[in-house]
């Protein structure tokens, strides 16, 4: 659910930089207006966004169910008292609103992720962050994208390596220790080799950036973002 879903919705067609900005604007507005009225308005807005992004609200929330005990616990704990009347609803209101705010923000970020390729986001980061920090963080995120599946495979392949030579005969503790140490050794060795790869391929401070093109569609979306920020600071 929280991965890119190929499609051609209006949100898919926006520039990732615009989407990042609007997403941040929603967050600012939500923190500034954590009131029943403010959150109601934002709910309407977030539902619109999800609709424009073809992001199903309930299914999205279901993927975050690990958060639910959390979101219920906070108001419950805050409202509870050690003696009669045992529960003061008024004390629970603020945390309850805060919990609701969390849900809204999770939805917005899901809509972003479902409509933006990781590659585009990465390009956006490199455009948005100036200078060398932008190169390190923009290119760096791209590299993380490369190594993430690789390290997962690595863990699997260490297990294969051990299985192939009957590592299963060893006690569990020893196996865990071996997988950990072998895994760490591979991570460090990979880092060294990866540095050489970057050098051999002329890793530079001024590469040709991935193409990003804003269109007329980004103008209204940017205005919406500006309006949200204005509402937050007003």
């Amino acid at each position, binding site marked *: 659910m929280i991965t890119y879903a190929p499609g051609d919705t209006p949100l898919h067609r926006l520039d990732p930089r615009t989407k990042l900005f609007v997403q941040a604007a929603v967050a600012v507005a939500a923190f500034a207006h954590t009131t029943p009225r403010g959150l109601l308005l934002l709910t309407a807005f977030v539902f619109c966004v999800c609709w424009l992004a073809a992001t199903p609200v309930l299914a999205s929330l279901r993927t975050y169910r690990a958060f639910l005990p959390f979101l219920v616990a906070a108001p419950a704990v805050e409202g509870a008292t050690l003696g009669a009347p045992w529960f003061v609803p008024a004390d629970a209101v603020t945390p309850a609103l805060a919990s609701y705010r969390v849900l809204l923000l999770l939805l917005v970020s899901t809509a972003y992720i479902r409509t933006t390729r990781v590659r585009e986001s990465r390009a956006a980061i490199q455009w948005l962050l100036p200078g060398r920090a932008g190169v390190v963080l923009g290119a760096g995120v791209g590299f993380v994208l490369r190594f993430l599946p690789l390290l997962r495979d690595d863990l699997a392949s260490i297990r*294969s390596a051990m299985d192939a*030579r009957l590592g299963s005969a060893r006690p569990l503790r020893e196996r865990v220790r071996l997988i950990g*140490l072998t895994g760490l050794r591979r991570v460090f060795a990979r880092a060294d080799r990866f540095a050489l790869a970057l050098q051999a391929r002329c890793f530079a401070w001024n590469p040709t950036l991935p193409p990003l093109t804003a269109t007329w569609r980004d103008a209204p979306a940017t205005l919406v973002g500006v309006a949200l920020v204005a509402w937050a600071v007003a």
Partner: protein
Amino acid sequence: MTITVDDYTYRYGEEPAVDRVSLTVADGEFLVLAGPNGSGKTTLVRGFNGLLTPDEGAVRVNGRPVADDPVAARAGVGMVFQDPRDGFVAATVGADVAFGPENLGLARDEIDRRVDDALDAVRMSDRGGERIDELSGGERERVAIAGALAMEPDHLVLDEPFTGLDLRARESVLDRLAALDADGVSVVVVTHDLRDLHPLADRTVVLSDGSVALDAADPSPAALRELGVRPP
């Protein structure tokens, strides 16, 4: 003492990488498995000791289905991975080669004997104390081979084991494989190039697009070339 593959099918995604392959590696047979890049050789042999479980079909080692008794399959089939680095579990040469024999529960001097013997076969005696990360490419390949030899299995499966070996190491490994084969061990070597293996091979199987395209004791050079394999 056989490996029997029945209707082996394996899919990474939609398309099968290995498609209904059946194959028997007979007792003491020396089998060469060839085929172009991406034809499914690695995917097939990884099923021989249960590192991959086929989506359909089954593999039996010495008559026992691998799925029922993976431990017996792994003790019976020694495997050298295509990329030697995938197979290492320890930091130093000696510790890594000893890993398999230790798991077989052998006595310490038997373990030492096997480690010495295996390192000798790959011409790496006296280098047991070196760190694997600090070896050259060919040296790494040799240690990987030694790791499988030291288990002294009934069947040896080597996925492109001559990559990067120098002439002497290659000859030494070939000699050892021939000797093991003469002792009744069955050997499966995956390769693209039959030139060095031809004198040893009892049989050559060529995969193409996941299926067996050729299975012959002495295939014609033209047929091999047609299938993208370097003939002898």
